[in-house]
């Protein structure tokens, strides 16, 4: 347990506390290297690449964009709803969102 958390604290982008999930999505969906993935996400969010790991910047921005935060903000998008907003923001398709759309069609 201590090992993954140590890596997250030492080197990680801290997931939805900041923009780690978004950068990871670009690496995996488009095979972007780290520099390119950060540039791409920063451009889409209108922030600097340094801001992508800044919880203070990202907390407010994530709420504004409705792409999910760590706490239960009343009425805010969570889970699959947040991912549908991420799809639009990053211009990518997410498999679980496709499945959900198929299920409600």
């Amino acid at each position, binding site marked *: 347990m201590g090992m993954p958390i140590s890596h997250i604290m030492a*080197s990680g982008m801290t997931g*939805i506390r900041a923009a780690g999930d978004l950068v*990871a999505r670009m690496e995996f969906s488009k095979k972007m290297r780290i520099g390119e993935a950060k540039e791409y996400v920063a451009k889409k969010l209108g922030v600097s690449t340094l801001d992508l790991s800044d919880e203070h910047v990202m907390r407010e921005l994530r709420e504004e964009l409705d792409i999910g935060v760590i*706490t239960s903000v009343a009425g805010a998008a969570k889970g699959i709803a947040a991912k549908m907003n991420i799809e639009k923001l990053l211009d990518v398709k997410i498999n679980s969102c496709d499945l959900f759309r198929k299920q409600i069609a």
Partner: protein
Amino acid sequence: MATEYALRMGDGKRIFLSKEKILEELEAGSADAADLGEIPALNGNEIDKVAEILMMPGKTVSVEQGMEVPVTHDIGTLRIDGDQGNSGVGIPSSRLVGCMMHERAFGADTMELGHIDYSYKPVKPVISNECQAMEVCQQNMIVPLFYGAMPNMGLYYTPDGPFENPGDLMKAFKIQEAWDSMEHSAEHLTRDTIWIMQRLMASGSDGVNFDTIGAAGDGDFFGSLHAIEALRKEFPNIYIEAGMAGECVLGMHGELKYEGTTLAGLWPHQQAPLAAKAGASVFGPVCNTNTSKTSPWNLGRAVTFMKAAVKASTIPCHVDMGMGVGGIPMLETPPIDAVTRASKAMVEVAGVDGI
């Protein structure tokens, strides 16, 4: 008396080394990797940088601000609810709870759902359970969520599987039969992995993590590469992480090739282009930790291998940094001082795209 710095052996035991000794160990470790892989050793500046990281006074260290990278997770929630006598802590909880804890409480950049036995073959009898868990988790999660397991081709050999154990066959000098057994096992590994992931993709999975490819040698790598190729063809948008088991592909078969390249004996910088060719999104290179050597020796060696892999790869490299790999000491509770130093060195010197 020269100042000594508190470091670790490869088994985690604390040792004290002078700056001169640290530099000597780093150079020796790097030279070992360079010799084995026929790759460049770390230059003087890189050796100095890793030494500086190792000698930092704090218990934990971290990358410079702005250099953070995504951290992916092998074994998924099993580190919470599982207990295999190694990495799991056996806390009773559902896998959905485990996933959400990683996302909301631990700051994980991606997450993985896995089966308690954590190999692809035993997932088949419980596939419906896995699909149900995946769908429920995907409805609640925001970070990319993979399905992950080990290819573990050894499970296809007797007494666990249908094909005669090639080790036994080789002992009886039945070389052709041993090769046949490995080839049949690789075919089944490919077929099973595809079958499992077809169902998990239909349940909304973001993708698949091949955790510890090559654990059963070149046949394991062969079967996994063909599974990756088929999955990429069927699901063009699938996220595929191809993580290796060891630094060198063991030539259990010796003759297997992928796209004309013999798989036996490949090092990380030679494995990466094949994973990319097969269709992986991200490659997970490995360097094994030698428990009898110091952490500077192991880290110098690991950073050298990873730097070459990052350079040779056309896809992002998420270096494997669990217990006993990537310069991390080999024990259940790797000391945080050693983990964070290895983490920082991999990002800042090897230039990895993630961990």
